[in-house]
């Protein structure tokens, strides 16, 4: 298995979602990507739904510094402290957990612990997780600041990249959505429009 990439650390955790801070500024996993946290005995899977880069101190807003600089990169070069004064965070909605070898696509019994490491999932893990589309139900019903259709579209696109035949994966996911959204044609069309290849 490829070395899993560590992307951050949990700084806020609830049953349905957790927030993690990235170790490096701007090194945020893409929207909709699958991340995991927790130790080997109880792993939690989450899908990135939101990300933000803010000042470390809530009261201190960054100020514009680039008036005399030639490029954006130059700003960071001339003020190296910036990387330490700003931070990138992302939120992930919990869509499943692993107990032992068994993968469950439902909410875990306990939320993540603070300071748990957060890893980006490998393609193999993504394929394994994508074998069932039960997590789509969680995403549809979660109340999140981003529209569900955007999040589902992004996550399915992300997951499809790990598959050999992305189209077949998306068609299968689309069929699942068609069943879940049989009463809500507009939402179905919106999602299908976002994942069509």
């Amino acid at each position, binding site marked *: 298995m490829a070395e899993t990439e560590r992307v951050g650390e949990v700084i806020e955790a609830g049953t349905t979602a957790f927030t993690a801070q990235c170790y490096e500024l701007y090194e945020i996993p893409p929207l909709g990507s699958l991340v995991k946290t927790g130790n080997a005995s109880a792993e939690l899977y989450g899908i990135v739904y939101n990300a933000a880069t803010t000042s470390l101190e809530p009261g201190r807003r960054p100020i514009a510094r680039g008036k005399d600089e030639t490029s954006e990169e130059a700003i960071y070069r001339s003020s190296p402290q910036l990387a330490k004064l700003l931070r990138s965070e992302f939120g992930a909605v919990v869509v499943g957990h692993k107990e032992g070898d068994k993968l469950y696509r439902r909410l875990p019994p306990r939320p993540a612990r603070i300071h748990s490491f957060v890893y980006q999932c490998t393609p193999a893990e993504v394929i394994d997780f994508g074998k069932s589309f039960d997590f789509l139900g969680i995403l549809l019903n979660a109340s999140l600041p981003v529209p569900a259709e955007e999040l589902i579209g992004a996550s399915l696109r992300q997951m499809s990249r790990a598959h050999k035949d992305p*189209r077949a994966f*998306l*068609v299968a996911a*689309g*069929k699942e*959505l*068609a*069943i879940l959204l*049989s*009463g809500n*044609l507009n939402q*179905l*069309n919106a999602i*299908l429009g976002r994942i*069509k*290849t």
Partner: protein
Amino acid sequence: MTENQRLGIVVSGSLGKGVEVKLDSSVSIEDVVVGRFVTIEGAKRRFFGMISEVSLGMTDQRLSLTPPDVADPFIAEVLAGTSTFGTLHVTPTLVIGGDADSLLEGPQPVKTVPSHFSMVNLASERDVELVFGSEDEKRFFIGNPLDMETKLCLDLEEFVKRSNGIFGKSGTGKTFLTRILLIGMLQKSQAVNLVFDMHNEYGWKGTREGGSPVKGLKQLFQSRVAVFTLDEENSRQRGVSTDGVVRIGHDEIEPEDIVLLRQTLNLTEQAVEAVYQVQRRYGKNWLQSTLEMDAETSKELLKELNIHESTFHNLRRGLATIQRLPFIEPNPPTNAVKAILEHLDRGTNVVLEFGRYRDITAYILVANMLSRRIYAQYQSRMEKATAAAKDNLKPHPLVITIEEAHKFLNPEVAGQTIFGTIAREMRKYNVTLLVIDQRPSGIDSEVMSQMGTKITCLLDNERDIDSVLAGVSGRNELKSVLAKLAAKRQALVFGHAVPMPVAFQPREYGSAESYRDFTDEGKAGTGKDIEKLWE
């Protein structure tokens, strides 16, 4: 096609109306056709049925109002089988239990429905064999179930026990089907056939639309078929080797024959009545006497019998038409009935060709007359055999094949013709009918209801369809199958000899290979018989 291809699952239904099946998204609805034979795997039992309707469904009616953008193949693929799906209507007709006893018993008529979400598969070859049996001494390969390679076999032993019908519009392949069945009966059953071959299609060779002529029975089974003809000259011209010429003497015509011809000869009721009177008066020679009567005698006779003069004229004109038929002679040299009966007794099948005399008068007269004589013989022999309780005295079962059956079996004359009697009394005297017709609605419903097995090609007249399917369970379902048969080489068989209705494609007839298959089967049969003797 793969074995046991899955079609979908049962979602609703009832015993009376059949079950609804939701098609799997992987199956294209366009590949599923009515008439296909399917199996339903219930929890405890296995059901056999036929697809009788195919329809489209959708989960949300709004889809039909605002159709999605199906120009995009992705969207179309996602929606197929989920939001939009195909449904099948399947009529289960047979069921087989899962335990050993019921497996031995074989398929039984259905008395319940499969449980919810039972899996529905296309029937495999083994399923077809389980239901219809495989080719053996009694079963004859008649064709393939629609879209399948499997051999569909008909139990001819059972088939000949009842009167049967072959129906279909003209040009749908009735004659070919009949030929196949005649060969089957010749090979696989004890019955002998008497074929009234109005169009000279069965004996020596037959015609084929847009093709070379096909061989008749005599060419394939020289020793077991005898061809008789009414028109020797015509038969010779066509190069047919005949076994006998049929001539009918004046004294062989009876008043009953005239009754049957009332419509074709345009006789009045009174004229028909007069026939009986004249016959009582003159006995056997009544026809000759009536025609040769001079004015003086006739006047006396009319007075004596109280017959009106115009009635008598009407009668004489009709009788003259009969007399003009070339095969009617005052004193024929041979007794045709006797000759035919002798052949039948020996187990030889007899085809009677009509040559050029295809007009309906000749056909009705001859067919009815011969059949009546033969039937009378059979009746007396059967009664003797029953009285003596000796099975070996019983004559061979006889199947009389008649074309244009509605002329003999229409409600007006069915009560009077011998065919009506045979169809109704059926197998009591070992004589049954094979009725071939294109207007089944013209046949007396009482006769239709007595028919054991019906094989029907395409029919499109509503009344014809109704009359063929009258009294059959699940007729509405069969109706949709029947109306959708191809115009050629497809037929639906149902009734006594088959455990369940099935649509099929008759086997090939007409190529050198097909002839070999037909004759080989016969040989294989005898080979087996010989092996049996050694055992």
